[in-house]
């Protein structure tokens, strides 16, 4: 995919939808398409965070391996979701595993390239970080509700 059509595709993703055309073209310089088959890992816990992923199609399980229990799913990502604010935050390591549950298409944004662009253009960096913050806030809200274990507490 050439950079122009990659920028147009990126602009369709909910994470990038409100970025300007120029910002999307700027971001497209860090992006590539990637496909993962069912069962294939996008990232492994502890490994270096080399890409931020924007999910385009398919679904991704976020898992943690618990000895004796195996992989425990804590979340599922769907088209429109993002994976990977670890790319902007030291020590740039993944905290959990991410595994494709079905054939999955993503935009993979190169971490070094992204960090460079966020530093080089603070306007872009602000817009990009604000979107990351919104995604993180939404994820935190959901995690808090999950933490409440509301179905256990309900009365019959």
């Amino acid at each position, binding site marked *: 995919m050439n950079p122009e059509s990659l920028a147009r595709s990126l602009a369709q993703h909910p994470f990038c939808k409100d970025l300007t055309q120029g910002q999307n073209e700027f971001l497209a310089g860090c992006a590539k398409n990637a496909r993962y088959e069912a069962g294939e890992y996008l990232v492994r816990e502890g490994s270096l965070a080399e890409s931020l992923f924007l999910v385009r199609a398919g*679904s991704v*399980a*976020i898992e943690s391996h618990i000895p004796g*229990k*195996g*992989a*425990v*799913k*804590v*979340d*599922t990502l*769907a088209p*429109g979701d993002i994976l990977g604010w670890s790319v902007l935050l030291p020590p740039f390591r993944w905290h959990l595993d991410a595994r494709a*549950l079905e054939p999955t298409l993503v935009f993979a944004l190169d971490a070094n390239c992204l960090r460079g662009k966020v530093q080089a253009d603070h306007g872009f960096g602000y817009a990009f970080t604000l979107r990351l913050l919104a995604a993180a806030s939404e994820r935190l*809200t*959901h995690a808090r*509700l*999950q933490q*409440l*274990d*509301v*179905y*256990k*507490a*309900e*009365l*019959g």
Partner: protein
Amino acid sequence: MTDALLLESMEITRVRHETRDTFTFDLDARPRGGFRFAPGQFNMLYAFGLGEVPISISGDPLKPAVLTHTIRAVGPTTRGLEALKKGDGVGVRGPFGTPWPVDEAQGKDVIVVAGGIGLAPLRPAIYSMLSRRQAFGKLCIAYGARTPADILYEKEIERWRGRIDVDLEVTVDRGDPDWRGHTGVVTKLLRRFELTPESTVALLCGPEVMMRFASRELEGLGVPSARIYVSMERNMKCGVGSCGHCQLGPSFVCKDGPVYPLTKAEPLMGIREL
């Protein structure tokens, strides 16, 4: 209903174990000429010698010969009901309470948001909408359970999921290695549906905190709060608004609810002392 306080004994014709702590009874309503109710209403069920509990009707309103309830065994009375078997009798009073606004939803998109055993009171509304499917716009169902083992009505959910005119998503708060579906809270599913928010009716039932989060999410998507309906639960005893046990601010949940528009329920949900 002849007398709201008069108990009627009905015979159990079928018992199904849905999950490790939840079961469904079918009661024979033929001797009384059928049991008519509106989706969302509940009955008071009496386990003889133990006590009475409010239980939503979970069956098909178009099949009045069978009266169905899905019950979670969490206390002495519901555990007593769980111990009953086919041929045993159960005391029934009802139906009570306000229904889901199924007729009002005609011509609009509908999103059903259920959490845990909250799917049971919504199932009659789903049956009702499916029986005249063309009268509604899109029909979306979001169902959240604690774990894969806690999912109610699994076979029926698969049948609904297989329909091209129903968009259904199930999620669990805690997945296991064999679970291939969504993991995460039910509110996360809501933005995945392609609805026309301004003309959508939302029916919510589950733990109150789940309904608070879900209603905020729906409002954020543009669904008017006047078209969001929630089913509240309080300590219902008499069923007719006389005893005051289920008082919620100025209303009685057994008589003025359990189904409320969010515009009425939200101010009350926000008062912590209630």
